[in-house]
């Protein structure tokens, strides 16, 4: 690659204005192409003629027997469905939905692509176009008419495939629901499977449910009493205290150039603790209170900003005191402090917002209230606390966050142990009052279970669920749930506790030999249900919008290319952005290449690095103008029984407007300049 080209690509950063205002360029194209360049055609525009051209296009496609491909797709779906080996009914229906949607999408997209890409070249070749252009129709009407014709073909195919999908799915679900009814008769069915199958027996296999997520997930060693009594279990939970600081809050206060006795910044800790039964170490006393480890986490990137060791590097305290801060015991009513070194202060001011993370020692509970950690500015060097001078400070920005130990699947919630029964709390705020069935509101839960005890134990995983109404502070009786690893479990809670729209779901793990992993999306409230057919219709509508996009792109390409090349280019345009996004190419890939292939040759590494980076930027630039087909993917949602929201329908429509409309305008401009008849 030439240096000039590299420079060119280097400068060609993704055009920021276009990203910020995605509608500006498309609107300009439409305005200039249609309303300026094609102003006369706009004045002569007749929708009747457009519809007639679309009808011709549609009838031509029917004559070419494109609809015959739908029975083939149906046969394919039936054959593949018969070869599936589902675990149970819900799995069978999910897989069948996937097959149906896959077949429908393939058939409709391919037909849209082929018909749109071949129509114009074929009409030019067999001179059918003469009969159109010699009539008083404008090129704008031809362009729009053809696109409408293609969309009518797609719609017809979608209607046929949609009706087949609904019919076939109902047939399959009827068969499976009978199986489930029989299966439920089995006395040896375990509790987890029973709960799972009972849900589908009651609600049917073809579902569309709207879910609501909790706003926040916290975990405590004990259930808090209102806004106080937040206890953290050492060894298995941690606390994050959020802070927001302004420039000058910390660094100036800790300026070493200031005179002796000048102000410094400190973290001040006030963390009472309790030893668990049997957890005290021999000879325990206040002087050997349990330790707390501290580090500072960047609130935006979640990476460690300042480690405990870094905090210990400066100051007058001994390193062991700094690395392992001894919290003041409630009995002593004192406090522990740590001086914030100047460099750390600057770093924190630069970060702006951060968390102070506290990690305790096993066998102890720590109370972490809002005042557990504060930033004080003053002079606290005097060993006599009475002489401490605090002239300012920064309080925590918000309530402390207490979490379970983190794994890659979420926060770990342990079972009861030595009198402590940790509780995870999902908070729902301003939640629309959900539909109740027989006074119960349904929820779903999907968790990861790890056995920590002897694997010979056959005790099933058991969770106790409760709901707490935040208005009345009333707590419901426990509902027991038997979940299975990574499988959705359905359960219900009394509706009367959810009526205020502000409530918390309390989750306790009843099995001490097991740990469960929870994350924000593990527990979901089923807020509403919709008919499956309506949801399917929305899914097919989105698929139709996609076929329309494909048809527009293919027709556009066919205005200046032969049809085989037009097909290939259309695929590149439609799939280009999706492919690049999936390849996950980002900056730094050039350095990786260079490091891998030229670890010792610096000159070659530099060239490769620059070239690859420039190519990456070029690729990013190109993909910035290509359509993102991600929002058209709704199959997974339908197969999992999730409703398609209006927002999800709006997104593909937006893409069609922002990309499809200008491409249609370009197609019109190209067609208007194309010599299609002598």
């Amino acid at each position, binding site marked *: 690659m030439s240096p000039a080209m590299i420079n060119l690509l280097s400068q060609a950063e993704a055009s920021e204005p276009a990203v910020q205002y995605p509608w500006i360029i498309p609107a300009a194209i439409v305005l200039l192409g249609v309303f300026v360049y094609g102003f006369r055609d706009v004045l002569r525009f007749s929708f009747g003629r457009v519809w007639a051209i679309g009808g011709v296009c549609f009838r031509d496609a029917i004559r070419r027997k494109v609809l015959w491909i739908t029975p083939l797709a149906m046969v394919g779906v039936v054959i593949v469905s018969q*070869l599936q080996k589902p675990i149970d009914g819900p799995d069978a229906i999910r897989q069948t939905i996937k097959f149906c949607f896959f077949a429908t999408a393939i058939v409709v997209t391919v037909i849209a692509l082929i018909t749109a890409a071949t129509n114009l070249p074929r009409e030019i070749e067999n001179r059918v176009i003469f009969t159109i252009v010699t009539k008083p129709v404008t090129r704008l009407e031809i362009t729009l008419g053809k696109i409408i014709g293609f969309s009518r073909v797609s719609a017809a195919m979608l209607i046929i495939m949609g009706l087949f999908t609904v019919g076939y799915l109902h047939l399959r679900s009827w068969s499976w629901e009978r199986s489930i009814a029989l299966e439920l008769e089995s006395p040896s069915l375990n509790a987890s499977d029973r709960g799972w199958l009972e849900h589908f027996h009651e609600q049917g296999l073809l579902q569309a449910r709207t879910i609501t997520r909790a706003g926040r997930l916290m975990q405590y060693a004990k259930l808090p009493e209102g806004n106080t009594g937040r206890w953290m279990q050492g060894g298995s939970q941690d606390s994050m205290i959020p802070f927001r600081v302004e420039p000058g809050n910390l660094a100036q206060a800790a300026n070493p150039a200031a005179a002796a006795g000048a102000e410094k910044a400190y973290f001040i800790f006030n963390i009472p603790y309790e030893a668990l039964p049997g957890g005290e170490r021999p000879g325990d006393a206040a002087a050997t209170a349990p330790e707390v480890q501290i580090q500072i986490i960047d609130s935006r990137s979640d990476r460690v900003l300042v480690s405990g060791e870094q905090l210990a590097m400066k100051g007058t305290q001994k390193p062991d005191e700094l690395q392992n801060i001894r919290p003041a015991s409630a009995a002593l009513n004192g406090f522990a402090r740590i001086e914030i070194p100047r460099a750390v202060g600057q770093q924190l001011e630069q970060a702006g917002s951060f968390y102070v993370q506290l990690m305790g020692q096993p066998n102890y509970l720590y109370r972490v209230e809002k005042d557990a950690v504060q930033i004080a500015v003053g002079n606290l060097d005097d060993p006599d606390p009475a002489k401490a001078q605090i002239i300012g400070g920064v309080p925590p920005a918000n309530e402390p966050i207490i979490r379970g130990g983190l794994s890659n699947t979420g926060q770990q919630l342990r079972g009861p142990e030595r009198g402590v029964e940790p509780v995870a709390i999902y908070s729902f705020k301003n939640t629309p009052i959900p539909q109740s069935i027989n006074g119960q509101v349904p929820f779903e839960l999907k968790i990861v279970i790890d056995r920590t005890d002897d694997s010979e134990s*056959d005790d099933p995983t058991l969770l106790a669920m409760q709901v707490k109404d935040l208005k009345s502070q009333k707590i419901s009786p426990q509902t027991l749930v038997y979940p299975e690893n990574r499988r959705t479990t359905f359960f219900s809670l009394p509706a009367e506790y959810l009526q205020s729209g502000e409530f918390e779901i309390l989750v306790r793990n009843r099995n001490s030999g097991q740990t469960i992993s929870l994350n924000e999306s593990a527990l979901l409230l089923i807020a509403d249900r919709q008919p499956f057919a309506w949801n399917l219709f929305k899914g097919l509508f989105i698929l139709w919008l996609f076929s329309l996009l494909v048809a527009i792109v293919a027709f556009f390409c066919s205005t200046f290319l032969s049809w085989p090349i037009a097909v290939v280019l259309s695929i590149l345009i439609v799939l280009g952005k999706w492919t690049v996004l999936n390849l996950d190419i980002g900056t730094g890939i050039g350095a990786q290449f260079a490091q891998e292939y030229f670890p010792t040759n610096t000159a070659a590494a530099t060239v490769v690095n620059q070239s690859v980076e420039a190519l990456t930027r070029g690729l990013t630039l190109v993909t910035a103008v290509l359509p993102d087909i991600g929002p058209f993917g709704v199959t997974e949602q339908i197969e999992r029984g999730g409703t398609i929201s209006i927002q999800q329908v709006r997104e593909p429509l937006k893409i069609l407007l922002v990309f499809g409309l200008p491409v249609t305008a370009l197609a019109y401009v190209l067609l208007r300049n194309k010599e299609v008849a002598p």
Partner: protein
Amino acid sequence: MNIRARLPIIIALILSLIGAHFARRATTEQRFVLDKSRGESESKKGNLSQLNSYALGLLLGGLRGPMLMALWTTSENQKNDRELEDFDTKVELIRLLQAEFDGVHLFQIWNKAYNISVQMANVPTKYSTILDGMDYAFSVSAERTDNINILAAIGGLYFDKFGGAAEKAYFSPRLMDETLPAQDRVRITFPLARRDEILNAARLTAAPSYLLTPREVTKDAGKLYISLRKPAADLLKARVNAGANDSAVEYTQRPAKPANAGAEQGRRTEHDPILDGNYRVLPKFLAPREGVAATGDAADGSELPYLKRFEPYPIGVSPYALAYNYYKRCQWLQKYRQARHAQMSDRVISVRPALALKKWSEEDWYAARRAEIELLKLPVPRDDAELEPVTQSLKLDAPLVKSPLLDEIIWRYRNSSKIADAAVAEYLYHLKPGPEGGDFPSDEFTYRSHLEGSEAQAKLVLADAVYLEAITATGDEKLRLARESAKYYQQAANLFARHILRFYMGDEDVPDVLPRDLRNLNRGDVGPGSNKMQDWELPFSLAKLRAKHLASNWQLQNSDDFKEINSYVERCYARIATIDAFLKK
């Protein structure tokens, strides 16, 4: 190009096609011959998997290879990511598309039964996942009948997973229970406060232990429930209610359903029943293959030909019994059809039936021991090696009440003895040289200790059975049974003592432990059947060896083995002493 120029190309193409046809036919015939030589019979079913690679390749437009690559990659990724949706379908498609490759099937059987089952959190789900692996193996077996690889894999699943896995305390009783004919079940709901009372009473009905882990009633806090077979529930009701109307304990009957009803389309959750109402193997499992005369062994193509000799099975068929059946079929195929396993050596295939019988007899032994301890309401040790001393001091006049649990214990002891004797015979067959046996005499060193251990065990558990019968008997019958029991205990003690001295004594200990005039004897001279060392000398040698272990603070090389086997001997001596004391009274 004119037709004359094209002619040679056309002729060459036609000749190539004809050549390809004959080459393919020759290889197909060659494979058929090889299949026959491996002992495989003709397939039973006709479906996609019966199409060969060539036909499938044509059917899929040459995309069979890429499709398989995608299926393998995605299914393995899903397994690693623990996202198992569609996984079974993908594995099924791989099975259908690669039906000819045993290696694929062996991998997938292992994959499901081991790799996937361990990803399940709860034991019942693990159980049904292993059953799914088993179903896979049976599907392949139905298409590739008498395939030694698949049959050995089925035997392996029964042996290693249902019989020997860490969760065997759940798997094995459940499998045994499900092989019994279907019966109505009763759900018994009771208050938490009466947990121990209900569970103890339920155990006395001989309800399998896996059913006695109560579950909490999800919609009624403070209540638990268990589900039992109706006869056991009736016994429990009679015992718990004792004539009074006990409304705190609720009994809800649920009708029996056909095996796996409702699961015919999905993953099954239960093993199929194998037994009829008389606890005998259902005729369909013993029926020979169509057109073949019944021979009672693997030659007739029946599914479970080797289980008939051990009928009846009043508490269900052990997974080891099923493993024995399939291993025995493999052994027969290897011996009489010259079938060769792809991964296991001939000697391993030959000895597996003996190992299965040995494990089966030990399973009954330990299960009966545990039940005996439960019957006496004593704490049950976790480790099998610690079971012996717990009940050894049980008196002959102990107030043991007859109960289904006691009957089961006695049956299991007797069955253990019977199966241990069968294991001995099976080991001898394996070691026997020439065409009359397995022809592996060189395995003598490896399996002699198994064989002699089983011989001793057969006597010990027989003595235990007779001892328990003596406790519940009265008058002369009690005395007769006590004497008979003492005789078996003595035989067991002698056999175990010789077993220790022969296999679990260091060479350096021989001069100190064996009687002085026998020091120049080799180890084989102290084994059973040898008259060079008298039975009366055994306790002294054993005591000397024990003293050496004690002196080393149990740090000798064989200390753990010695301790375990010596506990059997001590049990025998303790019981003999009890019987002697009783008889003297």
